[in-house]
Every structure is written in C-alpha cells, then in structure tokens.
C-alpha cells in the first residue's frame, strides 16, 4: 500500500494501464510535456514516449473526434478535457459518435475510450471552472458515467474504465484532488495522506463499474450522493446526529439501483445530494426511480439538495456550493416528513 493524493492515484492508474497494454494512449491539452494543468499525466511522456502521451491542439472536438478514430482502429485512447466546462465542443463527437458507433454498426466498430475531465466547484473557478455536467451524459444511451470520490476508488475505477469495451466519461471532482474537502471552507482541509482511502494499492486493480458503496450504515434515512459531495454528506450526517446511511454511487450509469432500493426500503427516507444544478440534474432520475420502486416504503418525499439553477458564480462560491448546513436542513426535513 502507498499513500497517494487523488492526482497521484489517477497518474498511477494511467501508468499501470500503459504498462499493461501498449494500445493505451493518452492525449489532451498540456498533458504531454507538462503533464496536465492538474499534473494528472505528469511523467507519462518521458516514461512512455511522445507517441503514447502527447499534447494536442486546443480543440476538444479534435481530441475526442480523433480518439473515436483511434478507438475504431484498435487503440484505447484515454483523453483529458482540461475542465468539464470545456467539453461542449466535443459533445457532438461524444453523443452522436462515440456513444452510438457500436449500435449503428451492429458491433462491427466499437469505441473503447475514456474521456476524463475535472468537474465541480469549490475552487473559486466561477462559471467556467466549476461545472458538473454529469446529467448531460447520463441521458445519452451508449455512455457510462463514473465519478470517484477518493484516491483508492479513482485508481480502481479508472482502470476499470480503461478496460471497459465502451466509452466511459470519467468525472474527477477537482476539489478532492488534494484532500477530502467536506464543505467547511473556513476550516483547514485534511490531506489524503491522513485518510484511509488515500491508501492505494500500487499494482493493477479494478473497482467494477456499476457498483455503489455504503460509506456509513444508518437506519433513519438514506443519503445518495457521489463525488465531492460524499465528504460533505458524511460531515453533515455526523453533525446532524441522525443515523443516516450514506451511499457513494461511484457510477451513475449503469446505476446500482439494487443497492439504492435495498437501503431506502430499509430506511423509508431518501435524500439525494449533488453539486450540479437541480433541474434535470441526475438527482431527478434517482428521485423518479426511488419513488417508483420504493413507493410503499417511503415515509417522506424524496428530497434533493443540489446546485442552484443558475450559472456558477465567483464571489458567492460558498453560497452556491452545497454546504453541510443545507444538507443538515434536508436531513431534519426528511425526518419530519
């Protein structure tokens, strides 16, 4: 076991994958010589050569579009979009091409690739460095969407994503890169080196896509979340004193509906927490599923705590980023219901 930040774990996953499979290639803006603006690919070019890890022109369309061609050829491209906020120029290639190639060619051409992108707020990045666009991917048949919440999962999920035969969108909560930020911006953030999940196996291991994990068992209510909000949820639950079960979904699509149903059937109450804007966010889909499959067990309406339906502001960062207090209010409310 080694101590790693989430950045180191992601870097390590790349290295292990490239070591194991010569067809894994890495490209993106500033990922080559420099190793990425978040350093997630540092060292790969010098270790594996400029043909397997290189800088691209600033064209997200070009990055994903050429990756589709490479994947069709037989390579396994792992590409980085510098910030999720900049994935839109590549959205057509992701939605119309990568996601549908297997279907429209009846399996003759496939698109095994991973599109990595840092997501989420909490870094005073304002509207173009803070977005959480996961729902724009979960609505698209043919894609898988993964959001890790810690270094250990990040490495295992990324290796599983690279091994997956279909396109996987891999969303990295940038606020977690260096530590498990719990939303208390006025307190120092603990570092991963002190956190159990910062302990990462240096070898090859996969964490299966489509499996959630229960991070805190509880009987009173179920809190479903993913990414940076996992740590906000855990903090809020501790502070609330209510015995809430906290589930880290890890993969949004395919969704671990069995784990969700089992927990909500047990607790009868459910809160969904995410950073993305509320309306048509992924929480809507979860709420729709939960009320349908757990209707007769629910003792209160399923509540959603999410980002406001506005662009992400700068000065008002902490009024936007879903806070432990907002989560605690929701816990109190769902318990009343």
């Amino acid at each position, binding site marked *: 076991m080694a101590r790693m930040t989430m950045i180191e774990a992601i870097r390590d996953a790349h290295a292990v994958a490239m070591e194991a499979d010569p067809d894994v*290639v890495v490209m993106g803006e500033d990922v080559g010589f420099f190793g990425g603006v978040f350093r997630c690919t540092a060292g790969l070019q010098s270790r594996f050569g400029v*043909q*397997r890890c290189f800088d*691209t*022109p600033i*064209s997200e*369309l*070009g990055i994903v*579009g*050429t*990756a*589709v*061609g*490479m994947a*069709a*050829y*037989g*390579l396994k491209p792992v590409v980085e979009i510098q910030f999720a906020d900049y994935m839109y*120029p590549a959205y*057509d*290639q992701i939605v*119309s*091409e990568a996601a*549908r*190639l*297997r*279907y*429209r*060619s*009846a*399996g*003759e*051409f*496939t698109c095994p690739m991973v599109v990595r992108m840092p997501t989420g707020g909490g870094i005073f990045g304002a509207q173009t460095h803070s977005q959480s666009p996961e729902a724009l991917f979960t609505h698209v*048949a*043919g894609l*898988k969407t993964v959001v890790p919440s810690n270094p250990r999962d990040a490495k295992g999920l990324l290796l599983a994503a690279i091994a997956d*035969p*279909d396109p996987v969108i891999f969303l990295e909560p940038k606020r977690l890169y260096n530590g498990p930020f719990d939303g208390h911006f006025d307190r120092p953030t603990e570092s991963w080196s002190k956190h159990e999940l910062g302990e990462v196996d240096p070898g090859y291991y996969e964490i299966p896509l*489509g499996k959630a994990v229960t991070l805190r068992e509880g009987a009173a209510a179920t809190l479903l979340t993913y990414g940076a909000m996992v740590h906000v949820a855990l903090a809020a639950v501790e502070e609330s004193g209510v015995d809430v079960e906290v589930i880290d979904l890890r993969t949004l*699509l*395919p*969704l671990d*509906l*069995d784990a969700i149903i089992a927990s909500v059937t047990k607790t009868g109450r459910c809160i969904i927490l995410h950073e993305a804007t509320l309306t048509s966010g992924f929480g809507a889909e979860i709420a729709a599923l939960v009320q349908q499959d757990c209707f007769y067990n629910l003792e209160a309406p399923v509540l959603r705590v999410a980002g406001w339906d506005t662009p992400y502001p700068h000065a008002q960062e902490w009024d936007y980023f879903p806070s432990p207090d907002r989560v605690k209010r929701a816990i109190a409310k769902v318990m009343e219901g």
Partner: protein
Amino acid sequence: MHEEIPPRLHVPEPAIRAGDTPDFSHVTIPRAGEVRRPDPDAKPEDMRDLAFSIIRVLNRNGEAVGPWAGSLSDEALKDGLRHMMTLRAYDARMLTAQRQGKTSFYMQHLGEEAISCAFQKALRKGDMNFPTYRQAGLLIAAGYPLVKMMCQVYSNEADPVRGRQLPVFYSSKEHGFFSISGNLATQYVQAVGWAMAAAIKGENKLSAAWIGDGSTAESDFHGALVFASTYKPPVILNIVNNQWAISTFQGIARGGAGTFAARGHGFGLPALRVDGNDYLAVHAAAAWAVERARLDLGPTLIEYVTYRAGGHSTSDDPAAYRPKEEGKSWPLGDPILRLKAHLIQKGLWSEERHSQAEAEVMDFVIAAQKEAEAIGTLHSGNRPSPREIFEDVYAEMPPHLVRQRHEVGY
C-alpha cells in the same frame, strides 16, 4: 481616407436559379493534360497552383493525355466502367424500390460515380474509408455483395446493421468502409484519428476522409485539418464538390475562397483539384496521394469537381431551386460516357459491347434485388426483431436495459 460606405450583408447567389436557363460560363475548365504533376515528395508550398486548376486526363476525343495519364491497365479500366454502370443501375433500382414503398429513403450518386469507384482502386486491404452517404462506389469497387447493400437499404432481417440505420448508411470493416453517421462531417476528423493510430503503431495503413462541399463549413472539417496538419498522419482528405448542398449552392460554403482545395493552404497541406467526372483523373490523383501517405509524407487534400445530377435524396426535388436542365449542361460531362468513349477510342470497347454490358449489369442487379426482397423489405417479409433495439447499445446489456426489454416482453 475615402468616403465611408455603409456595410451590406453580402449573400452569395448562384448565377442561375430555377426557371432560368443553365449557365456554367463562370466555371473555367482547363484543357485535359494541361496541369503539371509534381513528384509526390514535392513541398506543399511549391504546388499551390494545383488548388486553383483542375487535373483532367480524358480529353474531348476520349484520349488519355498529360502527366496524370497511364495509372490504370486496360483491364482496370474495363472494371471501372463496370463498377460505375453497376452503381448507376443499383441507384435506379433502389430509387424505384423506395417509390414503391419498399423502403423509407434513398440517396443516389447520379453523375458522381467516378469518384468513389476510381478512388477505391487506389487503396488496398487494410486501408479505411470514412465515407459520406454518397460514396457507395467504394463498396462496389471493393467487391462488397450487392445483396448485402440492398438488405441494408431494405432494413430487413439480413441487414448487417440489423435495421438500426437509415437506408444507405452501410458499414463494412472488411471492405474498408467505416459505419456512416447521419451527422455531417463528424467522420472527417475520425479518419484523421484512425490514421494517427496507424502512425502510432507504425503500420502501413492509410485512411481516406470524405466530405461534401457544403459540409466543409462544419467544425469537424477544421478539427480534421488542424490535427492532420500537426501530426501528419497517412490520411487523404477528400472533398466532393458537387456544386450543391441540398438547395444551397457551393458559393455559400466556399465564400471568398477561390476553391475548396485552397482551404488546405491555410494548413500547409498539399491540395489537388480534380475533374471528378474523369475516372482516370480521379484514380491518378488518388494514387498520387496514396503514394505520399505510404512514404510517410503525410496528408493530402483533394477536391473533386463534379455535379449532383439527381435530387439530394428521395425527399428532395431540385426543380424548386435550380434549372431542370442544369445537369445536362454541366461542362464536365457524364463519367460513364467519358470512360466508355475512352475505351472505344482505345479499341477495347464498342457501342454493341456497351449495350450488352448494360443488360448484363442490370440483370446482375435485378437478380441481387430479387434475392434481397425474398428475405424482406422495410414493411414486409422477414424484418429484424424488436429485440435488436436493445442489443449493441453496450457490449454487455446493463440492468436498466434488461428491465426495459422485459417491459415489452422480448
């Protein structure tokens, strides 16, 4: 500074619209054989002139002249004629089938047969085309079975893509034909990526990207040229300028540029402009670009000048926006008649032989059609199962799709 002139929106208009008499006097056509042929390893900046002329091999008398002549054997020429005739007969039958309601939609190649048929002959197994919906000649020239093509058009049980795709959206990895997307231009940049992969693996394969004049305005065209210009992979960037994009004439996409080939100059790419109705010229230009790719000299941009003689698709009636007779007065003529004349001029062919060949080709196409229709058409016979809706979304069907499939009970 002179007196100011208030700006106007300059909206390009075609010389002639529906109702008027066709006029191509603005199109300057160089004499066959006139355009020079640089060595394949010549520098792009030393051949800019080639983007502003038209490489032509067949002259008015059906003779093959000039430095681009001689890339094909007599047998290859006869094969080429048969491929083009087959494509034209195939189009005719499928158009009729669509009118008869045997399928939903069709797109023909009338007047553009030479481009895809001749280009394919410059490739070899392992190379990959990223075509649009108007290059079925690539499949025919590669020997892909007509019956399979028809089963795709009919979306019947034997359709290789299981009824999922619009008619003419073929796919055959084995024949170097990438699955067609309904989204214009997206495959152009993918072709560059495919060639980048070949370069990363150091394997001697090349890709051919295909796009129409109108679609060069799309973002993927730029992405493709940027990545091709930067990494110089073995890709041939083809632009089929058939003068029209549905109802929109090529001037709207071309704007102030003299030609589409000239787009390559902004990227330091060698750019050729070719008579797309001249089977020999198309093949010679393609072979030249292929040689560059096989010598790791990087990408080549080729504009094929041709004319979309038919409607855009079975949903389109050109009479609404261009003169009915415009096609007939197209100065580059008909690709089949021109190659036929060449073969006759060479003593390899005759009027009799040609009418006989027409009959043979039509019999061949009709036989294939019978076979395909015996399996089924869009609304009758053996059709793909509704289960196919849920297959191949992913390699492995995830729980939510299993659940949905069960809901419909198949």
